């Protein structure tokens, strides 16, 4: 169980690193928020089968994010006003 928690933490950190480097803008903000909320919704789950299913979903989700970030970088476009202001304030 502790291994699973560490695994999940590592994946969450990976998503955060991707978000810093990526260009999906509002979609990445959505992805971060959704992943964080999903972690919080399922934090009390104890059934090992359910946990395994959720971890599998997390792995697939991370792989999807990585693929889509690559595609997004290939077709990068101008930033929106809000993204530009957010970048300036960082």
């Amino acid at each position, binding site marked *: 169980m502790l291994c699973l928690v560490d695994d999940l933490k590592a994946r969450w950190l990976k998503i955060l690193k991707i978000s810093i480097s990526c260009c999906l803008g509002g979609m990445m903000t959505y992805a971060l928020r959704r992943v964080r909320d999903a972690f919080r919704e399922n934090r009390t789950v104890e059934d090992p089968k359910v946990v395994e299913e959720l971890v599998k979903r997390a792995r697939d989700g991370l792989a999807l994010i990585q693929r889509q970030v690559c595609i997004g970088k290939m077709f990068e476009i101008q930033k*929106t*006003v809000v993204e530009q202001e957010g970048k300036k304030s960082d």
Partner: protein
Amino acid sequence: MMNRTLSRKLLVSMCGICSRRLSFAQSAVNTVQKQKELIKSRELEKDELRPLYMDFQATTPMDPRVLDAMLPFQVNYYGNPHSRTHAYGWESETAMEKARKQVADLIGADPREIVFTSGATESNNMSIKGVARFYKAKKNHIITTQTEHKCVLDSCRILEAEGFEVTYLPVKNNGLIDLKQLQETIRPYTSLVSIMTVNNEIGVKQPIKEIGHLCRSRNVFFHTDAAQAVGKIPINVNDWKVDLMSISGHKIYGPKGVGALYVRRRPRVRIEPLQNGGGQERGLRSGTVPTPLAVGLGAACDIAQQELEYDHKRVTSLANRLVQKIMSEIPDVVMNGDPDQRYPGCVNLSFAYVEGESLLMALKDVALSSGSACTSASLEPSYVLRAIGADEDLAHSSIRFGIGRFTTEEEVDYTVEKCIQQVKRLREMSPLWEMVQEGIDLKSIKWTQH
């Protein structure tokens, strides 16, 4: 007694109003003629910042999860799903049937009742013309509302030219139909009632369950254009007693160019197909089903089903944030449509004493709309706002804010801030606003032509 400056400004504004009224008469006479757009189209420069997207009713960006599901079928699995003799066809067919099930599950239907189309416009055309023509021997009356999408109204207009009788039901000031009036309008020879679930311009949600039960009790088929509703509010075609339902892919974060039509099997709804050919899609819509697009639609429906509650909660909170901030800072703002029976993500506000197109031009950093994308080229005020009885001046001052899955708090706050700033600036320039500030009742003024 008015002073010279004010009377000069009055004359200028009266000329503007007179010329506008004359141009309304002109456009009413010649509806086919395309009107010149006030906002000129141009491409963004490379270094120019993109506007924020707040027009989710016009279309939605494709969810990355949908694109991820589609890509294998664009690149590797390119078989024709109707090919029966090799693996390319079989795998394509399997994917298409999986997508069909995903669409069906979202609306509580059987997969055999889902027909893939090119979009909600085709689905609407198929339902209305198909049902009307199939049953025309015994029934030739159709009922719809005045606030339907253009494709529904236009389909009804074509049927009128073919000899059908069509009743366009008016709506109340809040955009909802009167159930009693609908009941009284249904006749023994009515074949179809078509009423949209959620309006694309004002976001009003019709009482579909009550309408469905009424139609079922009177043995009339019920079609609903659910393009703006599917994936955003819970839908069950059996609870609602809906016989036909139109679904659009690009309104639910799916690809453009694909949609679906739900056609009930029990009790059976027969329709005359619009498109004939190889007999695909149970003979109702011949043509090769575009597997990547169908897979995309299926994925979009699947994601929508999982995220429905989460998205609805978030969109409601963002919409409330937008409306409360604007209405608390600016007086004389009217929300069009019923405040309770609505989808929160579609907010249509009228800013009195400000011209809608001028406000859109001033808000160049935000992608907004003053009405339906399908009718945005016209200078005429929205027919939907006319139908709900909005004053002509308020109808010209309306802006539609669309909030969706990917909208952030920063985007809403930026939009609100700019909107408040620009409305105040435009009102400062408006002689009508000045007159209102001085306590003059504009409705008591008799405007004359010179």
